[in-house]
């Protein structure tokens, strides 16, 4: 280690909904992630700091938080890419209740996932013939575009509509519903179409694309929600739901 190592000032949210920022001086290390930096604070400075992580490699979706005001996955975010004037501000994910420090309660997020019927529902009786789904199938391509979500909640925290309307199901849940609606082996419609067009449904989306800007996997929930709007609109006009 160099003797005259550069420090960065990290302001970390401490407490619950009520609380304040605490500043830490942390040595800057090339290629360190935000998560590395938090681990340094917890192991070397203040062991009472709470934050959440599991896989450390961008698969589990548990480490997201607000970094300088933007929701990011901290295990794959390099400090040098986001540090501003040698300073960082770390807060719990927006639009979710704070448990402690940087840990939020993800329950409302997952409740809405269920509310949007975000789980696969097979046919009621065993199918005799399986529907073939070819790789070049158009509907299958739509599913492909919408999968790989890791439920990190970045889109939910970035969404203006969730902020102004707490009933809104949010980008992740609606994106999931869209991937299932395009799954030929799923049989939850038309109930799912109804589920995504209740008071907190897809029609609330303002097409701001803040979710698109913040998705660490470059998914496009805005596109999925636009697909839902059209599908529900057509079904409503035809009197199917």
């Amino acid at each position, binding site marked *: 280690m160099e003797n005259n190592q550069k420090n960065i000032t990290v302001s970390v949210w401490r407490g619950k909904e009520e609380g304040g920022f605490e500043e830490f001086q942390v040595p800057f290390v090339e290629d360190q992630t935000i998560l590395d930096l938090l681990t340094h604070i917890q192991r070397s400075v203040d062991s009472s700091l709470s934050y959440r992580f599991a896989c450390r490699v961008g698969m589990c979706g548990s480490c997201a938080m607000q970094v300088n005001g933007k929701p990011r996955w901290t295990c794959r975010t390099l400090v040098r890419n986001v540090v501003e004037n040698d300073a960082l501000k770390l807060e719990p994910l927006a639009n979710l209740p704070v448990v402690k420090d940087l840990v939020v309660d993800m329950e409302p997020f997952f409740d809405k996932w269920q509310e949007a019927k975000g789980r696969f529902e097979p046919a009621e009786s065993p199918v005799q013939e399986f529907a073939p789904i070819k790789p070049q199938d158009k509907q299958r391509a739509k599913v492909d575009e919408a999968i790989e979500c890791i439920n990190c909640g970045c889109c939910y925290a970035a969404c203006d*509509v969730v902020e102004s309307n707490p009933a809104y199901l949010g980008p992740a849940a609606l994106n999931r519903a869209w991937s299932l609606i395009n799954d030929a082996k799923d049989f939850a419609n038309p109930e799912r179409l*109804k589920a995504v*067009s*209740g*008071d907190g*449904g897809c*029609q609330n989306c303002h097409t701001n694309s803040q979710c698109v800007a913040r998705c660490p996997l470059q998914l496009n929930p805005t596109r999925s929600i636009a697909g839902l*709007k059209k599908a529900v*609109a057509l079904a*409503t006009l035809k009197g199917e739901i």
Partner: protein
Amino acid sequence: MSNRIEFKLWLLHRLSAMLLGLFVVVHIVGMIIAIQGGLSSAEILQRTSGNYAMGVFYSVFTIAAAVHSSIGLRTVAFEVLGWRGASINLVLTVFFLMLCVTGISAVGGLVL
């Protein structure tokens, strides 16, 4: 879930938008043509008086605009001011009816 009324209002907002998209283009083009050399009521009446096609066009335009703006304002009232429920619905129903009445009576005055 209230019979998916929110979604139906959104759909009505979009359907009225599709109509308005056509109407507004005609309106803007007509306006830019008409504005040249200033406006006078004689000149306006000369264009509109007895023009029943224009009367129908602007009556439908008025209703579509009243529907579209009332639903739009309702969303803004909720998301910006947190104002929702019976009171805002009443205010906007009055706003909608007022637009329809004043708009169509003005169209009547110009055409008939």
